[in-house]
């Protein structure tokens, strides 16, 4: 239910409430290659702590983030959800994004580490993580 709610908050652009689903110390990580690699040694598509997530949302709210002006419309599918006993969970996702006259797609699977019903780590494993991405300005 947490994951469906997370998806709906993002589709509704309720970014601040979405951030409220994360633990006070958290990480949002989109690896740049399959197998993820080590973020201490290499860049990721994104590797945010809570503060950088706040910055990311702040930027989207300035009204001058041209890559999201106008904002994309999205519908997220979250499926194949498995919850494990060690507070880990995973899901598959498909995000349909309508932007600039066409509908685009972001697909992959997510790994979550949960703590006290909050998201401590969200790892977004895009199918095409190591490819050149067109306007990756959505919160995934």
């Amino acid at each position: 239910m947490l994951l469906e709610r997370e998806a709906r908050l993002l589709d509704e652009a309720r970014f601040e409430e979405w951030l409220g689903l994360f633990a006070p110390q958290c990480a949002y990580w989109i690896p740049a290659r399959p197998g993820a690699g080590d973020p201490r040694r290499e860049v990721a598509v994104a590797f945010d702590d809570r503060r950088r997530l706040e910055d990311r949302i702040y930027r989207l709210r300035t009204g001058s983030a041209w890559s999201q002006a106008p904002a994309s419309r999205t519908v997220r599918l979250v499926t194949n959800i498995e919850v494990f006993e060690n507070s880990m969970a995973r899901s598959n996702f498909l995000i349909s994004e309508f932007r600039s006259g066409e509908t685009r797609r972001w697909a992959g699977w997510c790994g979550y580490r949960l703590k006290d019903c909050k998201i401590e780590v969200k790892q977004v494993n895009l199918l095409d993580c190591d490819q050149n991405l067109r306007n990756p300005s959505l919160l995934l």
Partner: protein
Amino acid sequence: MNTSTFSELVLEDRVHRAIYTDPAIFEMEMTRIFGAVWVYLAHESQIPGNDDYITARLGLRPVIAVRDSQGKIRCLYNRCAHRGARICREARGSARTFQCPYHGWTYFNTGKLRGVPWPEGYACDFKDPQFNLAQVPRVESYRGFIFGTLNLDAPSLSEYLGLVRKPIDEWLDRHPGGKVSVREANRLKFKGNWKLAYDNAADGYHVVFSHRSLLEMEHRAAKDAAKGMSFYMGKPDEAPMYVQVFARGHHFKDKRPNVEKRAGALWELEAAHPGMEHYESSIRSKLGEKAGRALDLAASEPVNINVFPNLSLLGNHIQVIQPLAVDETDTTWYATALVDEAGELGGAADAVNALRMRTQEAFPNFGEVDDAVNFEEIQRGLAACEDEWVYMHRGLGIPGRVRQQADGTLKAPATDEVFMREHMKEWKRLMSSQPRLAITREP
């Protein structure tokens, strides 16, 4: 296409929209630019050992940049001599030979044909070099940057780079050992012509507008401090930064003069990044007074060093512009790390690199995406066919604004467009030429 056309398309103060939209011009660029001059292919750290390879492109040609079994760097055509299939379908790896998955023809990584199945069914002599892989005839490396050209008459790479070698040397020499290592990349794509990215490469005029949200974001928690590219606010043309233009389409935006010459001053410009406080404190406790200089190595070096047609050193990034179609381009922002073989940083190199990964993610995530959208919007706007001209005249005709230097280079204030005018002149010259291009099959 009649080459006198190019004189009509590139004028002193403007260029015609067709150079960005015409597929016939794009096709010509794929030989007269991407082939006729030195094109950046790869960094040596991506193929560190013998037999290491990556697949890449030279223009639209699929190639394999490989360090062969004897240690020589080559750029092989990724194209079976038999029927034309790509022989290597992986992004990177290590291989002494390549075997085509279609009919099994096998090649050494020198490009020489090793053998074919059932050769007795052929009347020809397979020792003939015509059956070796084609390869780029001239491949040279400048301090780790590997370039290739098909132009037998091109000058040496060193001569081609000319005076842009100095900022490249300074960019490398700020690091221990004068070297860097590529560590993954932020990879972007935009639906627009490749020259839109190169036109932006030394552009100081766009910063406070295109990157308004980045500047606001960086100052969210530090409203009175100078963060990021805040030196573009106010009066950028009166700031000490400048743009410098070299021959052959190369240019350089030097923002270093805006920053105090004090160890740690560059680091102070960095906005908040994940893990910053933890790693900074670890570096300070290890290095004490020497920490400032190490932290500066984690910060974005305030330069844009642009090597025509497809390479930019921006901050700590190696940015590569890859044309795919007249209206589609990939820009790949390779992140770099220090390689501290001599231990000059007293064991702090790993921590500096960890910080450097986070600082390098910032601009592609929060800055470049907005530029890329603006490039796409140009491509869309240029569909208005009667509205022909794209202006590049900022600074032109203002006495004393562009200053010729003793070494023949030009310098101008930060928002000047002289750099674009000069690379367009070079583009026009190259497009009007008929270069002698060749491949070789001699390993």
